């Protein structure tokens, strides 16, 4: 079953960190992703996202396209990246979520992916 692991962090959590500390966290991410691949759960569809100052939000209201600078909502914690993992059950997905470094600083939401049966084209 596929699960989305959505990683949310408050940028302020990184504010006080030295480059060495941040580097250590990146290394941890590499290690976690490596383990996911070795355990055969990584679907390769995940990605870290660039910081929120690079975000742009689109809405269409009354046929008008509205484009705004920034993430969709003014929240403290922002989406910083995600994994899509193929796990045998929720517990396996939760186990990986707990290994994600940002689970210590922020939150990781784990939600099953809807498996849509696309009609044959």
């Amino acid at each position, binding site marked *: *079953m596929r*699960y989305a692991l959505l990683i949310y962090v408050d940028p302020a959590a990184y504010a006080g960190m030295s480059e060495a500390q941040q580097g250590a966290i990146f290394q941890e991410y590499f290690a976690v992703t490596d383990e996911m691949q070795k355990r055969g759960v990584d679907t390769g569809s995940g990605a870290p996202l660039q910081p929120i100052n690079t975000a742009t939000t689109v809405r269409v209201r009354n046929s008008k396209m509205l484009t705004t600078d920034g993430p969709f909502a003014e929240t403290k914690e922002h989406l910083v990246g995600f994994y899509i993992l193929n*796990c*045998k*059950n*929720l*517990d396996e*997905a*939760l186990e990986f979520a707990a290994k994600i470094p940002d689970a210590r600083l922020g939150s990781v939401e784990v*939600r*099953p992916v809807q498996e849509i049966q696309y009609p044959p084209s």
Partner: protein
Amino acid sequence: MSDIARIVETTFRAEHGHVLGALVSYLGDLDLAEDALQDAMITALETWARDGVPLNPAAWMTTVARRKAIDRLRRDKLFQEKQQELQLHAELERPGEMEFDDRPIPDERLKLIFACCHPALALESQLALTLRTLGGLTTPEIARAFLVPIPTMNQRITRAKTKIRQAGIPFEIPPAERVPERLDAVLYVLYLIFNEGYSATAGDDFIRQELCNEAIRLARVLVELLDQETQLESDAEALGLLALMLLHDSRRAARVDANGEIVLLEDQDRSLWNQAEIQEGLALLDRAVALCQPGTYQLQAAISALHAQAPTYTETDWRQIAALYAQLVRIEPTPVVQLNCAVAVGMAQGPLVGLMMMNNFKLEESLSQYHLYHAARADLLRRAGEFDSARIAYQRAFELAQTRAERVFLLRRIESLKHT
């Protein structure tokens, strides 16, 4: 209700957890298992009246429920997919046979307990689901227990089962490194169920007794299952919790008088205490303590044990109780525990020391809306000779009290102080 209906209901209720556990393990689907068991119950109402109650009801229930599950799946478009998962080939090859499998039904209740108490479910859902699937209580009974409308409880249970299915909550014993925290969650659910039944704020008398009985039964099952499961160690807190429940429950008959009014510990007729439960509780506590894994339930059980072993109220070992509370406060520094600690210290070292402790813990802030805080404080003030302050505190407690029995008791205290 007819006799046969009552027998069917009682039997299904008693075997519910065991049979459901086996069905869920077999089918991999809680909803389907429950629906199939419901179908089997309807069949039982017809056939048991005609053929008599089967010699092995659990075997009958399991066999018939499996057939009902297959029937349901056949009607379901997703049958083809399920077939592989269920490995039903053997059954399908002999469609008409009603073979009663008399082999012992595998006890999958541990898996069921861990699934129902999974932290991915909201706590209130864990409580409802545990009572429904393992306790076999009906939805109306559970609704009554938690003072919630039946449709609300129905929705809560349905949503919980949906979450289990959609999020992929497994029916498995967690891996060894996760067991301690997952077991904590299970114990907490059982503790809450017992508390709900034991406290004076829940529904009617009958359902409260049912909840306590159910909590004790499930705790017993848990302890037995943990003993049997070789990959898990005996858990001291599981033993401690069962001990705690039994020791508390042993006082049931003495807690309320013929008029349904509260009888305080100091006034209880100790000859009404259930000695069998006390002995069982003490033995469990000994087993627990020998494992050297201290914890909150064991401490609470030890305190209850000291009360249970005191021949009279005045012979209670308050010093020991106060010492145990001091330990409990360290691991569980909640206002209610702090309150109980202050009360025990008040008994061991005098009311003024107890009152001072209440001030030190700043309980006036955290427990200002809790009637038992005011009642406890009033009691200490009364024993210290501060009758006016005591009466005011009892008045406050009276205003906040939630049951008739407690209000009657508090009123009597207020009246008695008016004449001092």
